């Protein structure tokens, strides 16, 4: 039993942090907010070169063969830096989705391309009602010749405008199925959905009888449920890792600030009202760390309680990050409410992930079902 990082894991984290500190500065984050694509190609290629884009894929697919723990280490740093770009969409949603459900040929086609940075992927997991239960999918898939035609509306699809392939759940006659869709194909329309988080891009994805080939079907028709559930669990934990990083950044900034800010002739960090709040923030951050890395380990190790751990993680971290990032604004006072100060970059990053891949309420219900069988 050893709940600490290996030397390799610490090295990985340090190298990710060093690279992002240098290349993903707040100035870069702000510049990308007004960039048309929303992310920098130079950093993207750097990430490919450093092996981050293929981190969880098998070596024969150009990956590093690492697990969810390592992926979360990278994502925590990305949350900490408010990295703007399609890493999560491409590697976690698209990459892990293909890894979990794709055929040999599909993996061969896409995973090396994702790992090398040449292709970007995403997944369209939400519709109008925001129900995370895959069974709620209403988009349809009908057979058409050798292929399929897809219809329906997907919302909040991350980085779809930059993607070469999107995993799209749709209801076939056989039941819930999963398809690979080129978002630039005929019959597919993307419309930006602009949220408060400057580092994320969402699209509405409208499918009007969009035609896909027979080999775009991921797995057997009607068999997508378990793949989507497994993907959602991983996405929930990976999103929690990003929220953890954002929360830790907010805590660090707060602690730094209250050590230099004076009021009433004293450093405000000497006031118990401030100090106790900072202590509570640290407790929330450390507990989130435990929740993220326990769940990440459980998913990789195939532990018996992996599904429960994922729900513990997302329900806990969603609220802990909300609290910590909000408290950070509070201890900063007025400066924390300005656009010019960087705090809101991390506050909004955490906020944008809070409802995704199941919010706290969703995962708590899953926990009780798991505990009581009803």
């Amino acid at each position: 039993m050893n709940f600490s990082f290996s030397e390799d894991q610490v090295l990985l984290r340090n190298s990710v942090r060093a690279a992002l500190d240098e290349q993903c500065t707040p100035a870069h984050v702000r510049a990308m907010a007004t960039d048309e694509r929303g992310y920098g190609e130079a950093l993207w290629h750097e990430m490919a070169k450093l092996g981050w884009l293929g981190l969880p894929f098998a070596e024969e697919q150009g990956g590093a063969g690492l697990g969810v723990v390592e992926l979360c280490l990278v994502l925590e740093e990305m949350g900490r830096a408010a990295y703007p770009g399609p890493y999560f969409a491409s590697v976690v949603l698209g990459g892990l989705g293909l890894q979990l459900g794709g055929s040999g040929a599909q993996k061969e086609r896409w995973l090396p391309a994702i790992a090398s940075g040449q292709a970007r992927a995403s997944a369209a997991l939400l519709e109008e009602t925001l129900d995370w239960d895959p069974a709620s999918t209403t988009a349809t898939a009908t057979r058409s010749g050798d292929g399929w035609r897809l219809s329906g509306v997907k919302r909040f699809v991350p980085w779809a405008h930059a993607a070469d392939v999107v995993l799209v759940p749709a209801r076939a006659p056989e039941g819930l199925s999963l398809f690979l869709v080129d978002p630039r194909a005929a019959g597919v329309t993307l419309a930006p959905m602009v949220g408060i988080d400057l580092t994320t891009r969402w699209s509405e994805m409208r499918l009007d009888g969009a035609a896909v080939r027979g080999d775009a079907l991921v797995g057997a028709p009607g068999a997508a449920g378990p793949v989507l559930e497994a993907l959602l669990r991983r996405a929930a934990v990976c999103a929690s890792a990003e929220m953890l990083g954002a929360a830790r950044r907010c805590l660090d900034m707060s602690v730094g600030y209250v050590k230099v800010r004076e009021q009433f002739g004293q450093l405000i960090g000497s006031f118990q009202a401030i100090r106790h709040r900072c202590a509570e923030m640290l407790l929330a951050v450390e507990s989130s760390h435990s929740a993220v890395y326990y769940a990440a380990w459980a998913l990789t190790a195939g532990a018996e309680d992996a599904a429960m751990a994922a729900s513990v993680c997302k329900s806990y971290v969603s609220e802990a990050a909300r609290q910590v990032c909000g408290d950070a604004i509070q201890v900063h006072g007025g400066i924390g409410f300005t656009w010019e100060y960087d705090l809101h970059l991390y506050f909004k990053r955490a906020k944008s992930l809070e409802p995704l891949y199941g919010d706290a309420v969703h995962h708590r219900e899953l926990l009780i079902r798991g505990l009581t069988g009803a």
Partner: protein
Amino acid sequence: MDLNYTAEDVAFRKHVRTWLEQNMPRQIRNLDDRKAWHRKLYEAGYLGMGWPKEYGGQGARPMEQAIVADEMARAGAPAPTNGLGVGIVGPTIVVHGTDAQKRRYLRKILTAEEMWCQLYSEPNAGSDLAALRTAAEDKGDHFLVNGQKIWTSGGAIADWGLLLARTDPTVPKHKGISCFLMNMRQPGVDVRPLKQITGSSEFCEVFMTNARVEKENTIGRLGEGWGIAQTTLGYERGGRALARITTYASQYNQLLNAARRLKRNGRPILDDAVTRQKLGRIWADLEVERYGALRVLTQLERGEHPGASGSITKLSYSEFEKRFMELAEEILGPYGQLTDGVPAEFRLEVDTAIGDHGTWAYAFLWSRAGTIYAGSSEIQKNVIGERILGLPKETRADRVGGTR
């Protein structure tokens, strides 16, 4: 990172489980029964496991200690006695005591032949422990002790007490405190039980009037008492980390059963969406406590002392326990308040470190103590703020000047 237990630890756990099945007493009726059980645990090597072998311990790894405590919680085994002796006084003597003190006192702590208490808090020195006023006056070959202590757990059954007293009132308050071993069985020591909100008396008040402490029973040097007390506070953490969670989980399952049976608006409370959310939150919190315990154990196994981060653990579980018990009360309604005449379905099957009190009412009331004893939540937050986050200290008048 590997959160699986090693084959060695799994085998040890199995061994402990079997031993408990064969040796656990059916019932503890009185202190003699509990001492007998304590002795049995000691002889099996399950008590004071972390102590060095030369003083009767096992030199066991923290994980082995945690597994024994955890298996005892899992089996609902009665707690041993002399907890402060084994957990705090003994380790203090091991680290700070003289060879003579070690020979004289250590083994009898483990065998519970001599029971110990801790004489720290005073009516006007709670969170501000260093403000204590109990005085030990140097009389040549001995000290004369005068003053009052409070919140002395196990005081009524203690033979000896680990005492903090002021030996120099002319220096700043943290520097004038010394640490002693005091015989409780002497005319100058008057112990009175203190009745708590639970209706029970796990704690006592201790009045000392010209009580005598021999010179050779000084721990460390005069004026070093504060530093010694700081290190011993740390001994409390870690070993029971897993056991605590196992007890919570057992209580949680009993609460789920109650929520299946009780109804609201014609439906089982367990089907109520709001209650499910609250139960889900507590389960997540409980699991996060378990993960945190595994992190602490990892640190201990590597020989690292948790130090100030123990404050994070203590703050976390004590506040959690309060939230948990508030939810239990909410679900159980008036059943949760019964101290007697509790129907079997709503009894709480648990033996706590402080005795067998099988009611939710007792567990609920007792949860109010956790965020006060051994450093209140407010004090823990100060420690976290100052020692972990490095925040500036408050401007405090009491860091300069004497107490008189």
